[in-house]
């Protein structure tokens, strides 16, 4: 079986000349994950 998550999150952008990094995945394709582990921040 498969679970697909689709969600909105802030994207990285430049503001007043500063790069504001926003949502980033903390996993990659092929990684094993368990319930409760962060997949992105």
């Amino acid at each position, binding site marked *: 079986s498969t679970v697909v*998550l689709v*969600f*909105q999150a*802030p994207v990285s952008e430049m503001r007043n000349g500063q790069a504001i990094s926003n949502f980033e995945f903390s996993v990659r394709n092929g990684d094993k994950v368990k*319930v409760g582990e962060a*997949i992105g*921040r």
Partner: protein
Amino acid sequence: GGGAGSGNKFLVPGATVATMLMLGILHARRLYDDKKVEDRKEKGIEPEFSPDVKASFMKLLPLRSMSRFWGHLMEMQIPVFLRPTVYKAWARAFHSDLEEAALPLENYASLQEFFVRKLKEGSRPIDTDPNCLVSPVDGKILQIGEIRGPGALIDQVKGFSYSVSSLLGTNSNLHINDLEEEKSEEDLSGVVDVPGAKSWWCVSLASPKRQNPMSMRPKRGIFYCVIYLKPGDYHRVHSPVDWNILRRRHFSGRLFPQNERAVQTIRNLYIENERVVLEGEWKEGFIALAAIGATNIGSIRLFIEPEIQTNKPTAKLVPSERPDERMYEPGGTGVVVKKGEEVAAFYMG
């Protein structure tokens, strides 16, 4: 008669040997294919979409009847003295971790009960960082990314993609479109679509040059994460964030297998298969979770809606266009769910 008798005498053993031989050849072929997939992975060669005859043959099989038969088999009661042996064999075959099972093995009356077992308290600590999303299941990350531009596609595998709207449903709250120039910022405001309310989500993928650079709101993108659960994995589904679940959509669909070979050979696998979509909002906006069934694991139960029925025998042969949809607490805040809370479970059959 004797001749015919002696002919019959060899019929059964002959058929048995032939069947065993065929299964052995199939198994060897399967091991060879898997070895090829592993080698490619080690060389860093990303699997590509390569439909084959077997995939088109799949459409002819009575997958739903096979799935329901498998479910009945898995629900058969196992004698208590045999349970540890059977579940240890299952754990060895599918690499399950028996130490985490909440109950002693004798307490699971059938393989189905064992399959949907709870885990011991504390087996899955939830990351409490308020700015993170956590994995809703145990499994393997197949695809992650950001959805950009028209069409809003998600890769099934390299060389084949499907659209978000066909996964979630065309009347999803997530309106993916490229905004025209003149749309003002407030059109982007996402307020949840609740009957009677005058608002709706319009999540634009307008290219950055089109979005108002002066707006103070952080730009938002749409991200996706595809996680594959192997048969031996823990199969309960938890909440990835604190969110309000506003609506549920059930697509009866087909029940193709979902293993890695199927992902590489069967077109539109995730948008043709039976699935339950939960849709709502979290602090950053829209969020949806799609639980997609497979031949051996075709049923999905929701703890927030126990009465929903999936993998029904009457499911239409051709996947119904219109999913069965339900609003939770129309006009209200939907069902409030905390990060890590159990929301659903996959069942065999």
